[in-house]
C-alpha cells in the first residue's frame, strides 16, 4: 500500500514512466497486512497440528483449505473483491451454511444417545462397559497418585517395576520410583502420592478412585486396572469378545453372539436383544415418519405445531392491532406532551426481552404474583399452570413486549402518508371510518405487510419468551416430554437433549428441517411482497 504522500503527486510526468519508478517502498498498510497474515498462518497451523493430534481429519482438511485460500486471496492481486468478502464468508460457511447442511444430514441418521459415535467407538465402549474382574486374576500393590487434577494409578508389577497410568494414558513404566516393603510405590517422580489418610478423609476422591479405569494397553481387549479398596488393583477384562473379521461380539459367559446390524446401528443377537451401545447410521426418512406416526409423539407434535402457528399469528395480529390503534389515536398534533408520552409507550420494547419474560413469570406467579394480588383481589388463578391460561398469558406478555414496535412503525408510516389523498377523500365526503378503511389502512399495509411477515417468522421461532415464561409447560399427559405452550423450536430443544437427558439429535434435526420448510415458505411469501430480489 502506498503512503499518503502518493496522493499529492500530481506533477505532469512522462506518460511512459516505468512501474519500477513509482515504487515508494513498503507502506504501513503492507506491513500491517504481513503481520496479520503471519498471525493467521500461525493460528491456522496450530489448528492443523492439533487436528492431526486429535485425528480429526475433516477439521484438518477444512482448516488447511481455508488457510491456503486465505494466503492466495491476500497475496494475489486479482482477488480484490474476495479480500473484502473472505472474513465474513468463513464465518458464514462454518457457522451457518455448514450447520444448516449438517442439520440436513443428521435428520437422516439415528444420531443420539446410544448412537453417538462410529462403529469402532461402539466396539471399544462395549468392551469397556462389560469389563469384569477375572476370577483368578492377580492383584497388584497400588498407590493413588495425582498431578494437579489428574488422578492416576501407580502399581508395582511382578518384576518390581513401577507403572503409572491415568484415565487418558495407558500404563507405562517410570524410572526412579521408590517402593516400600509391601511393594507399594511410595515415591513416583512427576507425581504426588495420595496418602491413605487423605483418601479416607475425602468421599469425592474415593468415588473418583473407584470410578477410575486405567487401560493396560491401547487395545481395549487387554482390559484395564481398577481398584475397590484403594490399596490393590486388579485387571478387569471384558466379558465380550470382539471378532473383527466376522464383525460379531460373543458373550464369553452365555455364548450369545451379537451381529453388527448396519441397518439400525446396533449389535443384535438372534433373539432380537441388542447391546446398549450402538453407532450412528443413516436411517432414511425414519425420523420424519416417527414424528407423524409414533403414538407418544405424533399427537403432542401436532398440537405443538398448531399452537406455533396460532401463537405467531395471534401475536402479530394483536400487537399490530394495538400498536396501530395507539398510533392512530396519538398521531394527533393537538395533543400536548406527545413526545414523552411516546417514550413511556415504548418502554416495554426498550426493556430487554428476556428480562421482561422472567419478570412476568414472577408477576404471574400463582401464590405470590402481583397480577393475582392487584387485579384479581388475591384470587388463586394458576396463570402458568393451566393449559389455556398459560397460552393466554404468553400472548398477553408478548403483546406487552411487541405492541411498541408496531406503535413506532405505524406512527412512522402514518406520518409518511400523502396528505393530499387524505384531503381529497375528505372533500369527497368520506367519513372517518370510510377514510380509515379505504385509504389509510391499504396504504399502511403496503409499507407494513413485509414487516408483519418477518415478525411472524421471528415469533414462529421465539424460543426466549416461551422458555422464560413457562418452559413449554404445563406438560401434556404421556411421555413425550412436551407441554401445551411448547412451540416447535422449544419442542426441538426438549427432544434434542442438548441440555442433558436422553438425546435424539436425529429426530430433533428432522423437526428443524420441518421448521426450515415453514420458514422458507413464509419468507418466499415475504419476497413476493417486497420484491427484494428485483432490487439487486
Amino acid at each position, binding site marked *: 500500500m502506498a503512503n499518503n504522500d502518493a496522493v499529492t503527486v500530481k506533477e505532469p510526468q512522462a506518460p511512459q514512466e516505468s512501474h519500477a519508478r513509482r515504487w515508494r517502498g513498503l507502506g504501513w498498510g503492507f506491513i500491517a497486512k504481513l503481520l496479520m497474515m503471519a498471525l493467521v498462518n500461525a493460528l491456522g497451523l496450530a489448528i492443523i497440528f492439533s487436528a492431526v493430534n486429535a485425528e480429526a481429519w475433516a477439521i484438518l482438511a477444512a482448516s488447511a483449505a481455508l488457510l491456503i485460500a486465505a494466503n492466495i486471496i491476500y497475496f494475489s492481486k486479482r482477488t480484490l473483491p474476495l479480500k473484502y468478502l473472505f472474513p465474513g464468508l468463513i464465518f458464514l460457511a462454518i457457522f451457518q451454511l455448514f450447520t444448516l447442511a449438517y442439520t440436513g444430514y443428521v435428520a437422516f441418521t439415528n444420531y443420539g444417545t446410544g448412537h453417538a459415535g462410529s462403529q469402532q467407538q461402539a466396539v471399544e465402549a462395549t468392551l469397556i462397559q462389560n469389563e469384569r474382574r477375572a476370577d483368578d486374576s492377580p492383584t497388584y500393590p497400588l498407590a493413588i497418585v495425582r498431578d494437579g487434577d489428574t488422578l492416576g494409578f501407580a502399581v508395582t508389577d511382578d518384576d518390581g517395576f513401577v507403572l503409572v497410568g491415568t484415565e487418558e494414558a495407558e500404563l507405562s513404566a517410570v524410572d526412579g520410583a521408590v517402593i516400600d516393603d509391601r511393594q507399594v510405590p511410595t515415591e513416583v517422580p512427576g507425581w504426588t502420592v495420595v496418602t491413605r489418610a487423605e483418601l479416607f478423609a475425602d468421599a469425592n476422591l474415593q468415588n473418583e478412585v473407584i470410578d477410575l479405569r486405567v487401560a493396560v494397553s491401547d487395545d481395549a481387549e487387554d482390559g484395564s486396572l481398577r481398584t475397590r479398596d484403594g490399596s490393590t488393583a486388579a485387571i478387569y477384562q471384558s466379558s465380550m469378545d470382539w471378532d473383527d473379521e466376522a464383525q460379531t461380539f460373543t458373550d464369553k459367559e452365555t455364548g450369545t453372539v451379537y451381529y453388527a446390524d448396519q441397518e439400525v446401528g446396533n449389535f443384535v443377537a438372534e433373539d432380537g436383544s441388542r447391546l446398549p451401545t450402538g453407532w450412528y447410521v443413516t436411517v432414511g426418512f425414519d425420523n420424519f415418519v416417527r414424528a407423524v406416526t409414533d403414538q407418544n409423539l405424533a399427537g403432542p407434535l401436532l398440537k405443538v405445531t398448531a399452537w406455533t402457528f396460532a401463537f405467531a399469528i395471534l401475536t402479530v395480529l394483536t400487537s399490530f392491532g394495538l400498536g396501530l390503534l395507539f398510533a392512530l389515536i396519538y398521531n394527533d398534533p393537538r395533543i400536548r406532551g406527545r413526545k414523552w*408520552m411516546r417514550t413511556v409507550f415504548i418502554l416495554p420494547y426498550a426493556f430487554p426481552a428476556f428480562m421482561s419474560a422472567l419478570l412476568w413469570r414472577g408477576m404471574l406467579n400463582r401464590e405470590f404474583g402481583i397480577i393475582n394480588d392487584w387485579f384479581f383481589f388475591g384470587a388463586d388463578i394458576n396463570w402458568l399452570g393451566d393449559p389455556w391460561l398459560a397460552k393466554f398469558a404468553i400472548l398477553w406478555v408478548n403483546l406487552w413486549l411487541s405492541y411498541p414496535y408496531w406503535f413506532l412503525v405505524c406512527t412512522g408510516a402514518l406520518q409518511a402518508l400523502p396528505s393530499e389523498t387524505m384531503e381529497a377523500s375528505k372533500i369527497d365526503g368520506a367519513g372517518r371510518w370510510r377514510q380509515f378503511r379505504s385509504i389509510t389502512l391499504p396504504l399502511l399495509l403496503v409499507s407494513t405487510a413485509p414487516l408483519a411477515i418477518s415478525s411472524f417468522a421471528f415469533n414462529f421461532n421465539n424460543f426466549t419468551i416461551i422458555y422464560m415464561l413457562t418452559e413449554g409447560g404445563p406438560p401434556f399427559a404421556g411421555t413425550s416430554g412436551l407441554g401445551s405452550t411448547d412451540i416447535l423450536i422449544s419442542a426441538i430443544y426438549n427432544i434434542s437433549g442438548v441440555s442433558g437427558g436422553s438425546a435424539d439429535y436425529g429426530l430433533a434435526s428432522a423437526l428443524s428441517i420441518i421448521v426450515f420448510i415453514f420458514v422458507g415458505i413464509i419468507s418466499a411469501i415475504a419476497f413476493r411482497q417486497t420484491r427484494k430480489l428485483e432490487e439487486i
Partner: protein
Amino acid sequence: MADATATQVSTRRNPTRRSRWWGEVGWKYPVAALIIFYAAFPLVYVLSASLSSSGSLSSTSSLFSDMSLSNYAALSDTSYWTWVGNTLIVGVASAVGAVFMGACAAYAFSRYRFKGRRGGLTTLLIVQMFPQTVAFVSVFLLLTALGNVVPALGINSKIALICVYLGGALGANTFLMYGFFNTIPKDIDESAKVDGATHAQIFWKLIMPLVTPILAVVGLLAFISAFGDFILAKIVLVSEDQWTLAVGMYQWVSNQLSANWGLFAAGSVIASIPVLIIFLSLQKYIVGGLTAGSVKG
C-alpha cells in the same frame, strides 16, 4: 383541517365547544394514562422489588413499602458481575465483528463488479431466511467436534459463542449496509483512485467515515441480539463463570423453590438502565434499522 373546524366552532356557545374538544382530543389523555399504566407498571414493580429488603415475591406486592439497597449489595456475593462482564465481552466482540465483516462485504458488493456478485447477494438473501437458532443441534455437535481440536472453539467457550453469532452476521447485516453504501456516490472513490489512493485507503479513509451511521445501527443491533440471545448461549456456555446475563438470570428464577426475585429485580434494573438509555436516545436509528432488516429479540 381539524384545527379549522375547531376555530369555527369557537364562535359558538362554550359548552358545545368543550364537549367537542372532549370528543376530539380530550378523551385521549385519560386513555393515555391507562396505556402508560399498562406499559410501565411492570417496570415500576421491578424497581420497587429491587429496593425491597427481602428476596421473595410475597413481600413485594405493596410498592416501595421499604427502601433498602440490600439486594444491590447482595449482587456482589453472586456471579452477577462476572455475567455482566461476559455479556459485555460477547456483545461487544460480536458487534465489532459484525460491523467489520458486514462493512467489508457491503463494500465489495457495492463497489466491485465481479463474477458471482448477483449470485452471492441472492444466496445471502436466501441464507438469512434460515435462522441459526433453529439449527442449534448441529451448532452443538459442531462445537463439540471443534472443541476436541481447539478447546477455545468448543463448548463452554465465549470465543466459540462469538464465532457462532458472527456466522449469522453476514446474512443479517450485509443488506442493510449494502443499501446504505449504494447511496454514497461512486464519484468519490473514482476521484480518489485517480489521485492514486489504493483500495484499502478508499475503504478505510473515505467510505468508512461516510457510512458511520449505518455502522452504529448494525453494531447496536448486533449487540442487542447478542445481549438478548438465550438458546445459543445456554447451549454453548455450560459453567456458571462463563454464563451471560440471559442464562444466569434465568437460572436465578427458574427454580420455584430457590428463586431469588430480589436479586433478579436488582440485577435487571442495573442491566436494563444502560440498554434503556441507549435505546431511547437512539430509537430513531434502531427502528429505522429494524424496519429495514431484522426484528429485535
